[in-house]
């Protein structure tokens, strides 16, 4: 199975995602520069974390116009599993592949810490091996992760069970104290209507081995591995 990891100028978690796919999972992985126009036969596409284009204007606002994004949108429209992590999530929102937008963290601080994240839904390609309510301890590292959308959009996300991850305390309670950035309803990650596009602010790719302090993020990658193995990939043009 092949992971294609898109690299934007300023991406800095691209190698973490590559390492998780290639060395932890033992799968094929390839970097795809943002100026390219094909995803090189990807079964799974990852938009990694970082600071694309220096976060100028708004996070992800310029990256969404990169040439590769046309192929990314086609991959998503075809049902391909697409994961946006941190800056990748911000890019997906700016591109309209996921609803909502990110505001500055409510305390204006950059948060770099392990947080509690609760898995809300398991019918996405990235949570199929998790259990509903499972607690993950994985890191966040962002200054603009304060998820916002209009009340009607939030209501639609909730009623269609598209909130996939929420910030929570060690007992799984989604308290305000456990919310690191002020996100509406403690939202840490959501999915698309087709459920194949998932975006989250926490970094599962940085928590795939015990030596890193947590291997809780591995379940996202193992899930997509089993999903693609079970259903076959949506392969993109290899050229």
């Amino acid at each position, binding site marked *: 199975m092949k992971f294609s990891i898109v690299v934007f100028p300023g991406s800095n978690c691209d190698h973490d995602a590559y390492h998780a796919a290639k060395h932890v999972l033992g799968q094929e992985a390839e970097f795809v520069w943002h100026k390219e126009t094909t995803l090189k036969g990807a079964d799974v596409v990852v938009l990694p974390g970082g600071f694309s284009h220096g976060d100028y*204007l*708004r996070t992800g*606002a*310029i990256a969404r*116009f990169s040439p590769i994004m046309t192929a990314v949108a086609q991959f998503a429209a075809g049902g391909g599993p697409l994961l946006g992590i941190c800056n990748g999530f911000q890019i997906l*929102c*700016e591109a309209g592949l996921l*609803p*909502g*937008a990110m*505001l*500055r*963290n*409510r*305390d*204006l601080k950059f948060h770099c810490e392990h947080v509690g994240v609760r898995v809300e839904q398991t019918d996405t390609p990235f949570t199929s091996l998790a259990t509903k309510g499972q607690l993950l301890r994985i890191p966040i590292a962002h200054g603009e992760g304060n998820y*916002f*959308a*209009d009340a009607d959009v939030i209501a639609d996300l909730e009623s269609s069970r598209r909130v996939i991850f929420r910030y929570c305390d060690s007992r799984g309670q989604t308290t305000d104290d456990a919310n690191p950035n*002020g996100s509406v309803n403690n939202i840490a990650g959501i999915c698309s209507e087709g459920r194949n596009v998932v975006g989250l602010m926490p970094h599962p790719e940085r928590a795939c081995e015990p030596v890193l302090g947590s291997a809780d993020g591995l379940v996202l990658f193992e899930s997509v591995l089993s999903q693609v193995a079970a259903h076959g990939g949506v392969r993109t043009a290899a050229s």
Partner: protein
Amino acid sequence: MGVGLHRKSKKMKARVFVTLKPSVFDPQGQTIAEALHSMGYAGIGDVRQGKYFELDVTAKSPDQARTLAAEVADKLLANPVIESYRVEIE
């Protein structure tokens, strides 16, 4: 030359002001307001922080320049989920 015929393009300045929508919390504006209050400026209430862009535009009329500036504001300068904008042409 007849008025309106063969109008030449002119260089103009488009000023685009982008602000957070009223429903969106602005932690930066609030922090600035709190700083001003602690400095003794009791006459200043809320502060909302925004962005300001100056675009050099070549267009045949101020209306055309305004349309162009609005188009790029819609596409790139502002995110309609959280922001609104206003255009001035000079």
